[in-house]
């Protein structure tokens, strides 16, 4: 990987970067906000939520900044009327997909989806809500999985596979029917591979995964451990 120093422009600002960095990393280092939900420092990026799309001069399409590497002389725009509109619509799609009842959610006030809606000034969801009937899996002695609040970002799947090494989580089905599962789609509490480490809970951006016993608005997530664990792994 080319790791030489590169210079690029983000929103008209000249910034320097290592060649192996992504646009998102460089933007965040420079205090430029780009929204994202599936990206989490320390996990492999998947480019799935599409919130971090940016305009790159000369590129025919919008590019996901979480996986797009910087290039010398690149000109990146992270905010535009079009990007704002698309991002709001993507958030709306997420809100309309399942049952996100913020007011009674265990993560109310600590939720990244809710937080982004506020930050991106989303005042309502104009797509019709779908209201699927989805289960809550509370079979685990310490944790709860609420599929109503899941946005399929797969952070849990990745942290479990890449950091914990258990690969308890994966995704089943496809399309609008896709769902996260543990082992053979069995109750989490019966999972043979789960180590009960709780990393999935703390990387989950919403109230989908939470600690048991938490009441409404009580589930604040702790993520500080992740970059540390990633560093430990890569240096090993």
């Amino acid at each position, binding site marked *: 990987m080319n790791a030489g120093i590169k210079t690029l422009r983000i929103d008209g600002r000249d910034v320097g970067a290592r060649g192996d960095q992504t646009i998102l990393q460089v933007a965040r280092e420079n205090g430029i906000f780009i929204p994202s939900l599936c990206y989490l420092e320390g996990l492999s990026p998947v480019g799935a939520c599409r919130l971090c799309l940016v305009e790159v001069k000369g590129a025919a399409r919008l590019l996901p900044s979480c996986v797009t590497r910087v290039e010398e002389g690149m000109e990146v725009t992270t905010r535009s009327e079009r990007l704002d509109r698309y991002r709001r619509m993507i958030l709306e799609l997420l*809100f309309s997909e399942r*049952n996100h009842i913020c007011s009674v959610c265990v993560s109310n006030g600590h939720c990244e989806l809710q937080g982004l809606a*506020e930050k991106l000034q989303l*005042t309502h*969801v104009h797509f019709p809500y779908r209201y699927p009937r*989805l289960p809550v899996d509370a079979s685990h002695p310490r944790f709860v999985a609420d599929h109503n609040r899941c946005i399929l970002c797969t952070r849990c799947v990745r942290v479990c596979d890449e950091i914990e090494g258990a690969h308890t989580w994966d995704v089943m089905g496809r399309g609008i029917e896709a769902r996260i599962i543990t082992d053979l789609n069995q109750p989490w509490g019966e999972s043979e591979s789960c180590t009960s480490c709780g990393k999935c809970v703390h990387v989950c951006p919403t109230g989908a995964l939470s600690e048991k016993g938490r009441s409404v608005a009580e589930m604040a997530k702790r993520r500080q451990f992740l970059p540390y664990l990633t560093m430990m792994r890569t240096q090993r």
Partner: protein
Amino acid sequence: MSRLRLATVWLDGCSGCHMSFLDMDERLIELARGIELVYSPLVDAKEFPEQVDVTLVEGAVGTRDDEEKLRAIRARTRVLVALGDCAVTANVPAMRNPFGPQAAMARAYQENATRNPGAPTREIPVLQARVRPLHEVVPVDVFVPGCPPSADTIHYVLQELLAGRMPDLAGRSRFGA
């Protein structure tokens, strides 16, 4: 200067937004100077009047009556404000949607009844298949999320409307606040 003709309406909600309206406390006294409350659960008007400047609607649309009422309100209102999460997102009332009205009624009037079990059928509005936010039924001009929006937020909204400006809710309230 003529006073702002204000109405407040309560559809499928808990009245918490109306309580938050009252939580403006003594600011109500000062607001009373600029506002004429022409229709509200707080006053005795039985018919929604014509030519209302601003209507604050709390609650979601859950019955055909709600829908008819909302359409009439829209037709007679200049600025329609969706007040609170139920009006904006359908919120908790919408939690019945995955079950459907029949199952919901069965729980209350069959399972949990010791006399005359059976869903009520007369004199009551028919439940719709889905509880919906206002904007799925009529155009909405201002969205004020929150469960409920704070009294400060409501005060801000009214002051802006009194001043003839459209309120900008950015950063003032959020879903579930």
